[in-house]
């Protein structure tokens, strides 16, 4: 293309010289300018920028990180460059997960692991990120395509699988354990898992994997009526896990009985999903780069612009065995942790004069104080702050279960039972 345009320019030049009448020169000059403009456009078309070795704080328009490194200059973040060491796994590359992935990519995150089993559909186009020409591609492949163009420095791994199946779960867990990106890292191979899935079943699976791996994760969700959402930080053993109590939802204030569900499963808005993705990645950056307050739970009611917050203690009777194991481990190390935290607070108090705290609380929207004492007991349903409700009931007490209705079926061999069902099906 560039060679063609160059040839055209020289043809025009030859034409101009061969013309005896200079009155045509002006229009040829105009044509030459247009060709030059086209040449520039062709040059700037889909050219990928090359990788950057070190994040520079230099303020030039060719530096993709200058505005991010400015956070460090301003004293908001102590060491922004550390972001390149971190690995974040994003489960579910839909309306929230894809936007979260783009945000982290633009922030220069070290490595992203992307999980989804679905393909891009035209029905997804009311949300951000995916483009119509990507319809039919797997969401993970389409995401890698876009993200690697935006920032080739990010190491991208895509996993097209369903984490709720036995096989998918095994691959999911082993990919989280892989430490080749940063062998010196303690624990698993990732710093944080972000759950951006759209259903309870998949959240329970992320919870299971993270409890088993002792992996800190963040949950996010948007309601099926598209007008509320939430994010939640889950630290195994330290905070309530996703199975400790039935999941919380932000009450939209709409009477469930007036909600018309005929003919539809779920609605979605790019706005609500974008807001939730923004809240999720903001919390992620604060957690990874250690600045500001990391929210344990933040709800979003879009109809009222109301943001309830709360904290939840783990449930000692949690039905998830791995959660109870993590709770026991956490209690063992708690005294040492508390002492260290206290020392840190005292050290910060000494230097507090440099950064005066705004304790007039004018903009504080928290409805629950953050101190340990006020952590909500997950079991008590009436202790929830305004605007939050439980989505599901607790399981009935195990011990009070009625004895299972004994059938006439006394066979207790698996193969015999299988054959009995087959015979019934054939008849």
């Amino acid at each position, binding site marked *: 293309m560039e060679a063609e345009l160059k040839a055209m320019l020289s043809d025009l030049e030859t034409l101009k010289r061969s013309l005896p009448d200079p009155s045509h020169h002006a229009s040829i000059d105009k044509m030459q300018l247009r060709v030059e403009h086209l040449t520039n456009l062709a040059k700037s078309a889909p050219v990928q920028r090359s990788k950057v070795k070190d994040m520079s704080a230099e303020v030039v328009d060719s530096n993709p990180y200058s505005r991010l490194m400015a956070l460090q200059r301003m004293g908001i973040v102590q060491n922004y460059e550390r972001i390149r060491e971190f690995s974040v796994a994003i489960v579910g590359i839909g309306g929230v997960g894809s936007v979260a992935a783009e945000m982290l990519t633009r922030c220069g995150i070290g490595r992203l692991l992307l999980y989804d089993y679905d393909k891009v559909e035209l029905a997804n186009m009311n949300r951000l990120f995916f483009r119509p020409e990507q319809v039919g591609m797997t969401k993970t492949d389409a995401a890698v395509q876009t993200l690697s163009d935006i920032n080739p420095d990010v190491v991208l791994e895509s996993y097209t699988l369903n984490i709720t199946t*036995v096989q998918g779960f095994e691959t999911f867990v082993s990919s989280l354990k892989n430490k080749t990106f940063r062998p010196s890292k303690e624990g698993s191979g990732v710093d944080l898992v972000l759950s951006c899935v759209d259903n*309870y079943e998949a959240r329970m699976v992320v919870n299971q994997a993270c409890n088993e791996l002792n992996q800190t994760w963040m949950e996010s969700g948007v309601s099926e009526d598209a007008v509320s959402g939430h994010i939640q930080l889950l630290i195994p053993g330290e905070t309530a896990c996703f199975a400790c109590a039935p999941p919380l939802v932000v009450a939209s204030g709409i009477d469930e009985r007036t909600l018309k569900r005929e003919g539809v*499963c779920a609605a979605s808005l790019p706005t609500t999903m974008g807001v939730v993705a923004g809240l999720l990645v903001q919390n992620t950056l604060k957690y990874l780069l250690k600045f500001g307050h990391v929210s344990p739970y933040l709800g979003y009611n879009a109809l009222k612009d109301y943001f309830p917050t709360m904290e939840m203690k783990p449930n000692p009777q949690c039905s998830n065995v791995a959660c109870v194991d993590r709770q026991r481990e956490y209690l063992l190390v708690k005294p040492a942790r508390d002492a260290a935290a206290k020392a840190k607070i005292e050290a910060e108090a000494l230097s507090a004069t440099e950064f005066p705290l705004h304790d007039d609380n004018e903009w504080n929207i928290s409805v629950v104080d953050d101190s340990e004492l006020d952590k909500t007991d997950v079991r008590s349903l009436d202790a929830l702050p305004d605007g939050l409700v439980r989505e599901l009931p607790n399981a*009935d007490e195990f011990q009070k279960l*009625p004895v299972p209705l004994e059938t006439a079926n006394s066979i207790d061999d698996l193969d015999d039972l299988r054959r009995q069902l087959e015979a019934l099906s054939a008849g």
Partner: protein
Amino acid sequence: MEGWDPNTKSTLTQIPLLSIKAGPRDGAAWTQRLKEEYKGLIAYTSMNKSNDNDWFRISAANPEGTRWTGKCWYVHNLLKYEFDLQFDIPVTYPSTAPEIELPQLDGKTHKMYRGGKICLTVHFKPLWAKNCPRFGIAHALCLGLAPWLAAEVPILVDSGMIKHKDDVATSIL
């Protein structure tokens, strides 16, 4: 049991309840649970047959019993409409219910999630959660799939989204 029709309710109470809380990663305990699942399915299928309401066939698609496939059908205006049926037992089972899929109807109705997973009523998940681990596959079919077929097949047929296959036509008369 608010929100369920009386038929579903009375059928449900006759399906034997399960007692072992074990999922596909729980080894021997899962085998015990699997036996209970079979007993539930055998009882439910027999009950349907004797009530002249036979409406599905199902069998494990692998030796571990973590994947199930089969057929389900629904009779509308004296014509029988039959669909493939499949689902995996999730790793967090029975805390979470299996997600039942009708792949042939994927993309034909809004009452379906991606991949052909049926969209359950607002009443299903709370009842499942409350009854964990007593509900099994048979309960999921009875509470999830049966009401879905009853609600959606007539709409799919009347709107022309699905056509009756003459070669599987059977008059119920």
